[in-house]
């Protein structure tokens, strides 16, 4: 299939890049000095895009590639893809669900434990030589804390399963109630925030969920409450979050995602009640390879006119 031209939008994975190079004619968007330059050389040959959470396939890109047939995203999130345009033009879209569910849920749990039990703060305490001066202080107990999940999809359910093993009562807010679980459903996010101690954002980013965690929700969660975000930075009104943390109106936060990655509000750097990770939810050797394999399998299936493995559109 090396006559088929595939566009990779950013250097997301060496393994994936090599796999694509072996099978297709690979064009790398980041090697072009300008958009005009890129379009001049490639607009008529590209039949597939491999995008990710940084650069997907927006309207401009889609419109400029008349031969585009498929967008295969190296992510489960679709917020960087203009799905409506793809639908209109009959362009297929695939993502990488399931293979990364466990890893992202694990990071959510890691953030919860790190914030509640102050693991990172303890590590700093020891490394700074403070232990000989006196014991660390008391934190809250994690087991049994009430966990509220925004979005009970694959990742949200995986988080619930893990938190249950710690005796945490689970509640959730989702587009639809899931009666097959015995978790407590709330029909709106404010009620969920009022009734939980740890609020976890695990839903997809859409127009409806943009800034779903705003000042009102943060106030409802309160000065003892903890906010965990493994979704997308734009789920949370970031300036509101920062001021709530600085003013002590929110108890703590564990964040893997931010509104303008890789920029992270510097005011957070001095806070002990936050844990900050650089969007590593699915960043394990095992999972990134599995995601890459799924991208490749979807592309091959498409060009061999076989059913796509994980189609979205």
């Amino acid at each position, binding site marked *: 299939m090396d006559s088929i031209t595939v566009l990779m939008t950013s250097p997301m994975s060496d393994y994936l890049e090599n796999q694509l190079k072996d099978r297709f004619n690979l064009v790398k968007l980041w090697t072009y000095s300008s958009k005009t330059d890129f379009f001049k050389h490639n607009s008529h040959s590209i039949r597939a895009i491999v995008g990710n959470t940084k650069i997907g396939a927006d309207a401009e890109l889609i419109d400029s590639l008349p031969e585009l047939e498929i967008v295969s995203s190296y992510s489960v999130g679709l917020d960087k893809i203009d799905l409506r345009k793809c639908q209109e033009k009959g362009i297929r879209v695939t993502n990488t669900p399931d293979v990364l569910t466990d890893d992202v849920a694990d990071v959510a749990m890691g*953030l919860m434990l790190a914030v509640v039990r102050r693991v990172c703060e303890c590590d700093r305490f020891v490394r700074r030589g403070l232990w000989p001066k006196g*014991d660390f202080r008391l934190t809250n*107990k994690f087991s049994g804390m009430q966990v509220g999940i925004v979005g009970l999809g694959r990742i949200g359910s995986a988080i619930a399963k893990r938190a249950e093993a*710690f005796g945490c009562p689970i509640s959730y807010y989702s587009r639809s109630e899931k009666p097959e679980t015995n978790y407590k459903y709330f029909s709106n996010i404010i009620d969920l925030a009022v009734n939980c101690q740890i609020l976890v954002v695990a839903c997809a980013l859409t127009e409806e969920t943009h800034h779903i965690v705003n000042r009102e929700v943060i106030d409802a969660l309160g000065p003892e409450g903890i906010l965990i975000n493994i979704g997308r930075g734009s789920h949370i009104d970031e300036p509101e979050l920062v001021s709530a943390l600085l003013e002590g109106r929110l108890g703590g936060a564990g964040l893997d995602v931010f509104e303008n990655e890789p920029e992270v509000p510097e005011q957070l*750097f001095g806070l002990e009640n936050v844990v900050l990770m650089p969007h590593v939810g699915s960043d394990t050797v095992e999972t990134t390879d599995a995601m890459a394999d799924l991208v490749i399998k979807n592309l091959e299936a498409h060009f061999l006119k076989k059913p796509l493995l994980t189609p979205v559109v």
Partner: protein
Amino acid sequence: MASDQATTPPPPPLPEIQSHDLSQVIVLHPPPVFNYFMDLFSKKFHLLKAWESPLPLHEFLTNHAHSAQAMLCSGTGPSISADIIRLLPSLRLVATTSAGLNHIDLTECRNRGISIANAGEAFSEDVADLAVGLLIDVFRKVSASDRYVRHGLWATKGDYPLGSKLGGKRIGIVGLGSIGFQVAKRLEAFGCNISYNSRKRKDFVSYPFYTNVCELAANSDVLIICCGLTEQTRHMINREVLLALGKEGVIVNIGRGAIIHEKELVQCLVQGEIGGAGLDVFENEPDVPKELFELDNVVLAPHMAVFTTESFEDLCDLMIGNLEAFFSKKPLLSPVMNE
């Protein structure tokens, strides 16, 4: 009109509960719970506070504690050695705020018929939570990547190196007691496979049992040390066990520092013979080997696994409950059984 009322004399003050009316409890060194709750103990018991006396310990005990029947201790402070026990002829109970018993001469207690009460399962969940927190941190580089972000490196140096998936990993639990069981229960929910080594096989679990820790290590990706420190377990985790665990292997210790041969652990970490470590305990606390401070694949905690408000409150209730039960000749709440 001002009237010169004959004022009735105030009632006589209630007699103060003299501390010598309360049962004596000898305390050599304040347990960590005393930082928060000492007054709760002082109200109910006459605390003989050896650490506050200018006298050397042996003198204090001889002069002031000969009728003390109960002692409250913890893992910190002087060990409750045979020497000390012999200076307390009335001693019938040693209550320790720890789950661990390695600081108490158990043989001397047994020979003298001295009962022991410990923390029981009061903080098994908290310790298990920290063990899992440390493990996730090592595998997914939580503390290391948090450092990376706080130093502004994400924007300048780019994406952080990949971690390792927890699901499917083989967890070897060393010591399947109350804490080990809580750890196993939690990690099962992450899709991990549990095996264990313990003094005895446990009938209530179906996890594979290994008779020796080296074999457990050879068949595990992770070792979590959840056992007590005894003569048998001192330095049980040595270079041989660590090499069996292997270059990708991770070790988590929430037991006692001396269960691991610390020098050999440090060497293995520095030389890349094992993949990483999460450590809450060390051989010479609060001293931590400085070589570990250079490593990003190590997460360090200052023996704080039980340091939660809930655990300390529960522990306080439990210790007071044990002492009250002892003095009213009722069964102890959390006695340590002779095995």
